[in-house]
């Protein structure tokens, strides 16, 4: 397979040339999931290089205890076959490194951190062919014509193959989850994309969801359960609404992110997971820090790079391309000029999500000729606050675990917001929300933990 091919469906064909059996065995583990072949000496390597078609070749330079760095001689052969050649050697003299690069190797590594290096090399190889595809995402996966948004997303995509933590900011419906998924798809990581809405859980439930639990760890834990951290092994963990997490929970998660190990509830042995963290919040991070809701050390750990996605109101050039994409393969819509003007003037507080709902409604509810009256009617309907609105995550959680946890969390969220709006004046919150002192103090105490 050559760069430009089908990167996400085929296994890469890889040749590892190393005389050390243990090193080959470790590489077999590191390259699990790819089609890997091995050669232990120069002659075997030459045979395989001449006969086979490989995507990547890892070359050790000294092939035998008294060998004369014959690995160097294999580089031109691999390069002539169009193979992405990577030297992995214990030899790190400048002369050898320059020689290897002069012979055409693409990357040179000193042995010692193969697990991380191999992941990054594969991702870079994939990205080499896929970099052209990044431009393509703006007309498919992340539709935008806004130059600022395009350059910001393209910039963050450069870090897709690294393990740099990314923090995505922006109001609801601006595409944070889409960007997180794109980063994962372009990462070359073999594991899954696991997302988690931290705002949908109480502290105790969030801990069980993230770290997993052993049978009998608490009432109702009838079986061992794998947490999101373990599910995201070799993949990406996307934490949405991190501002909703308690400080206590942030400490636990920070430790797991740093050490890549954690204890499931009720476990006496740690579990390990090699996950990359992408997080998101719609809240103002500086405010969260100032109000001590977000620990500075946790924030430092999750914001390797920060991307702020603009609301739709600030990129109105995207409204009609988005409508076109949303109706692709379905009934197309024809907008009267006044209807277009109305849509462009609307502020779209629910962003792309609101636009999608609008398109769904008018696609099914009209004949496709969209007049000003139709737009006026449906946009106003959408703008009306939905009574008892809840998120999909909350609904899913309630179905799985019962309503109580979701209700408790929602209650706490409303109380915290009202307290904020009243600048912390508890008396005002007690009066406005008509709640008991006991409930108010239990929420405040939990938030301070």
């Amino acid at each position, binding site marked *: 397979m050559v760069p430009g091919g089908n990167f996400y469906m085929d296994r890469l064909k890889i040749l590892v040339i190393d005389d*050390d*059996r*243990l*090193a080959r*065995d*470790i590489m077999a*583990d590191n390259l699990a999931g790819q089609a890997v072949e091995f050669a232990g000496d120069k002659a075997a390597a030459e045979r395989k290089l001449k006969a086979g078609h490989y995507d990547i070749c890892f070359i*050790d330079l*000294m092939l035998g*205890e*008294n*060998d004369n760095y014959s690995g160097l001689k294999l580089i031109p052969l691999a390069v002539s076959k169009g193979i992405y050649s990577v030297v992995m*050697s*214990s*030899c790190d003299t400048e002369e050898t490194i320059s020689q290897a690069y002069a012979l055409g190797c693409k990357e040179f590594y000193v*042995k*010692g951190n*193969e*697990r991380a290096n191999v992941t990054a090399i594969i991702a870079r190889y994939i990205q080499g062919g896929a970099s052209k595809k990044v431009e393509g995402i703006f007309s498919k996966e992340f539709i935008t014509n806004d130059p600022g948004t395009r350059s910001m997303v393209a910039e963050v995509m450069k870090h897709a193959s690294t393990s740099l933590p990314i923090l995505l900011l922006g109001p609801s419906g601006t595409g944070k989850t889409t960007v997180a998924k794109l980063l994962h798809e372009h990462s070359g990581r073999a594991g899954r994309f696991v997302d988690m809405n931290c705002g949908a859980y109480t502290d105790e439930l969030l801990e069980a969801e993230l770290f997993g639990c052993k049978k009998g760890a608490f009432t109702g834990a009838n079986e061992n359960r794998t947490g999101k951290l373990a599910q995201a092994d070799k993949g990406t963990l996307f934490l949405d609404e991190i501002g909703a997490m308690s400080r206590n929970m942030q400490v636990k998660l920070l430790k797991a992110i740093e050490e890549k190990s954690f204890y499931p509830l009720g476990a006496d042995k740690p579990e*390990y997971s090699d996950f990359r963290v992408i997080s998101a919040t719609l809240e103002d991070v500086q405010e969260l820090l100032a109000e001590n809701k977000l620990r500075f050390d946790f924030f430092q750990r999750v914001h390797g790079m920060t991307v702020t996605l603009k609301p739709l109101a600030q990129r109105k050039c995207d409204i009609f391309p988005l409508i076109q994409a949303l109706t692709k393969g379905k009934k197309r819509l024809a907008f009267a000029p006044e209807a277009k003007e109305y849509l462009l003037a609307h502020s779209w507080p629910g962003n792309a999500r609101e636009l999608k709902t609008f398109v769904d409604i008018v696609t099914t509810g009209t004949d496709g000729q969209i007049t000003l009256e139709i737009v006026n009617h449906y946009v106003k309907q959408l703008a009306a606050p939905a009574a008892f609105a809840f998120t999909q995550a909350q609904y899913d959680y309630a179905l799985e675990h019962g309503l109580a946890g979701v209700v408790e969390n929602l209650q706490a969220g409303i109380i915290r917001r009202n307290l904020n709006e009243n600048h912390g004046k508890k008396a005002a919150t007690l009066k406005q929300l008509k709640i008991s002192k006991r409930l108010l103090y239990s929420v405040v105490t939990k938030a301070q933990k």
Partner: protein
Amino acid sequence: MPDISKIRHTIKSKTTSLKEAAEFMHKCPDEKIRARIALMRETAQDIVRLLIELEAELQKPV
């Protein structure tokens, strides 16, 4: 005659493999662990042998 720099290189290379194998031993699948330990032991023996060779080379008069 073995080159001292080559012995050093091989010691470094084998030590790195051994360290990597030890570091990620917990990730090694159960069905592979015995074979992996045997390889690690073999590598450790190679390292000892190479160190002895290196000592002998260093003791030789220049």
